[in-house]
């Protein structure tokens, strides 16, 4: 279990977290939903060890091998599609297994036929899919997803969410998935935590024990969760807008 206990963090002049606590269960998918700029990325960077808390404790993350999908694809433009995955596997996986892993995840994300192309030839959505392949192929204990579908259109987003669920089912590992899209969270999370605007607090926590296959945007309890979370987030946003 990964645990944030009473964590404080200030970035520049901005107090991002003030006594923030939550935990992510091992081998499960935790979704953090919150308004833009609420500190979601900071939480992920702390989990990855890229940022340290000013005060408080983060337990259970030491020694974990981390895969990270950033908001941007962060690809090496001078390597081929397959080469970009091989880049992270080279020191972590024996050669015989590398090609197998690369082919498997490229197929799952519909990129197999592009394996010898360069990223320049890919669309924005394909680049982000390649970043997902890279993260899944790397042998990890913890997968951090920072709004990876942000710039994609709705149908593709839902499709990729389903694909991520499939890949998780094959090898269930801890995932912390940050998004501002409630629907993505409801389709993918075992636990969904709704966050407030800065300084971040927990507004709502929902545990969903429905198998991914049976989750449907039109079928209860997803619509009622959706409505409640949306109104919570709307109320958060209204606080920062002038009252006319």
């Amino acid at each position, binding site marked *: 279990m990964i645990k944030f206990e009473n964590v404080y963090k200030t970035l520049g002049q901005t107090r991002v977290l003030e006594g923030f606590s939550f935990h992510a269960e091992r081998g499960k998918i935790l979704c953090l939903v919150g308004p833009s700029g609420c500190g979601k990325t900071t939480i992920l960077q702390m989990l990855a060890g890229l940022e340290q808390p000013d005060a408080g404790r983060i337990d259970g993350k030491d020694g974990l091998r981390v*895969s990270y999908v950033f908001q941007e694809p962060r690809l090496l433009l001078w390597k081929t599609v397959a080469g970009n995955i091989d880049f992270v596997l080279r020191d972590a996986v024996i050669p015989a297994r590398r090609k197998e892993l690369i082919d498997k995840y490229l197929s799952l994300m519909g990129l197999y036929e592009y394996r010898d192309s360069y990223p320049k030839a890919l669309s924005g959505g394909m680049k982000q899919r390649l970043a997902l392949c890279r993260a899944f192929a790397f042998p990890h204990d913890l997968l951090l997803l920072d709004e990876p579908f942000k710039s994609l259109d709705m149908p593709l987003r839902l499709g990729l969410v389903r694909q991520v669920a499939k890949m998780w089912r094959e090898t269930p590992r801890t995932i912390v998935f940050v998004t501002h899209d409630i629907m993505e969270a409801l389709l993918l999370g075992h636990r969904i935590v709704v966050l407030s605007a800065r300084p971040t607090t927990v507004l709502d926590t929902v545990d969903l024990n429905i198998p991914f296959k049976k989750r449907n945007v039109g079928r209860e309890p997803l619509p009622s969760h959706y409505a409640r979370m949306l109104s919570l987030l709307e109320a958060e946003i209204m606080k920062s807008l002038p009252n006319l």
Partner: protein
Amino acid sequence: MKNSIFLIRGLPPLFGLAAFLAIWQVISGFYSHVITPSPVEVAQTLLTLAADGQLWEQSRHSILRGLVGFGLAVAAGTPLGLLIGMNPVAASLLRPLVVVLQVTPLISWLLLAMIWIGFTKVPVFVVFVTTLPLIVINTFQGVKSIDGQLLQMSEIYRISKPRVIREIYLPQVAPYLMAGVSNALGVTWKAVAMAEFLSVQQGIGASMAVARINLETAALFAWTLFLIGLGLVTDRLLAYLTNRKLKHWM
């Protein structure tokens, strides 16, 4: 289609060149051939030099010296530029020295080298010290342009430092380095001829020194043309090789 566009685009420069040669020919009629040899005379001299083997015999010394000095500068300048770019302590220690190196007049290096290391090695040394700062500064500029997001990604995926240098730094530095290499190559042939002129008995610069003493102005022109040609050919060759390597992602 593509060929015809190339032909049309190639016409104005050819026309310009023809006009230049015509004016040169006319002007040369007014003066003695010691002052202004005609283009025809220069071409004849160049052909004679090629025919009696002098062109190759002299230029092979210059080309070898140029390539050795230039090669050493690239071999030393690239790691030095990387070091200055990546290490703040190295940067504050070495950057001023590189700038001093860059602004030191060529003639000072030439004369000092004759005193320090003897005449025969002067051309190689002069090429080395004049091209080294170009390589270092361009490599350093390249390092400054490195994408920090990719370094963070490499850190997450636990890529080893040598691999980060090879696979993240070098490819991003490459376009800058190649610009530096191209500049340096341009300087190389000028520097080697200049150094040979003052220091040695063989090579293009030495042949120009002899031509000057004998008032063989046509030979001076011929060697100059050869140096220009050498610069152009090596520059195009480098551009071709660079493009072949970088075309996938630039």
